[in-house]
């Protein structure tokens, strides 16, 4: 049996950038898992509180941008008792070194986790070449 460790609180990371967003408010870096197999690169990003229509995925000149817009869910009449995490937009950019088939990028969003599937272009897929005896 695999022992599961206890989860620790991870402070949400605020984006530090030299330019400012036009709308004030905190912007956070989503935690991501990125892995690849032979055919595709798969990216999982935690964006809790974002609704599906608030998500933006953009790939331009090898830079993938993930954004998540959040609508305030508290109504104005609530007063704070204990505040441990900040609420704000999500923003993160990645440089992709491998060629990606732009037109067949797939994405889905479930339970606050964004999954982006980036298929590699055919020439980037490794091909096994068998050498036959002559």
């Amino acid at each position, binding site marked *: 049996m695999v022992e599961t460790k206890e989860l620790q609180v991870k402070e949400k990371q605020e984006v530090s950038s030299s330019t400012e967003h036009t709308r004030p408010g905190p912007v956070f870096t989503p935690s991501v898992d990125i892995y690849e197999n032979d055919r595709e690169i798969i990216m*999982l990003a*935690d*964006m809790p*509180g974002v609704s599906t229509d608030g998500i933006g995925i953009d790939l331009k000149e090898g830079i993938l941008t993930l954004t998540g817009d959040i609508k305030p869910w508290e109504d104005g009449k*609530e007063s704070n*008792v204990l505040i*441990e995490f900040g609420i704000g937009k999500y923003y993160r950019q990645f440089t992709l070194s491998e060629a990606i088939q732009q037109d067949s990028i797939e994405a889905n969003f479930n339970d606050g986790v964004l999954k982006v599937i980036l298929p590699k272009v055919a020439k980037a897929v490794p091909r096994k070449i068998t050498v036959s005896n002559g």
Partner: protein
Amino acid sequence: MITRRMLNFPAATGWSHPFFGMDELRKDMDRLNRLFDSSGSSYLPHFFKAGVFPALNITENEEKYFVRAELPGIKAEELDIQVNGRNLTISGERNTACCEENIKYHRREREGGKFSRGIVLPGDVDPEKVTASMVNGLLTVTAGKSEAAKPRKINVN
């Protein structure tokens, strides 16, 4: 120079704001005082964090308490929420391991594991009026206050 101002270096030197930054500090001190006040209130200042997963935001209005937590990737049925008097416990497990084989990780920042957190709400709640919802990885537990915990308007004759 700033340290001198903060240390209340003679204020009669003509600086326009000799107590620069003091306002914020005083507010924090007020909140700290309230924390250690023996009035029994569980009001915690916002820099006072428990460090237990999940991080919680608790808010209230006149009728209800709202407890919110960011739990991305956890399904509603994987959570266990219990309420007992003022005590609320949220526990579950997050699994981020991947099912696919022959993969190479570039980054692994999303963590998995078990969690359990118990909190004491500032007032009594009606156990019949506790509901929870999970939308886009955001858990909201709504707890209706018991009659005794609701603010009451007192008329002056």
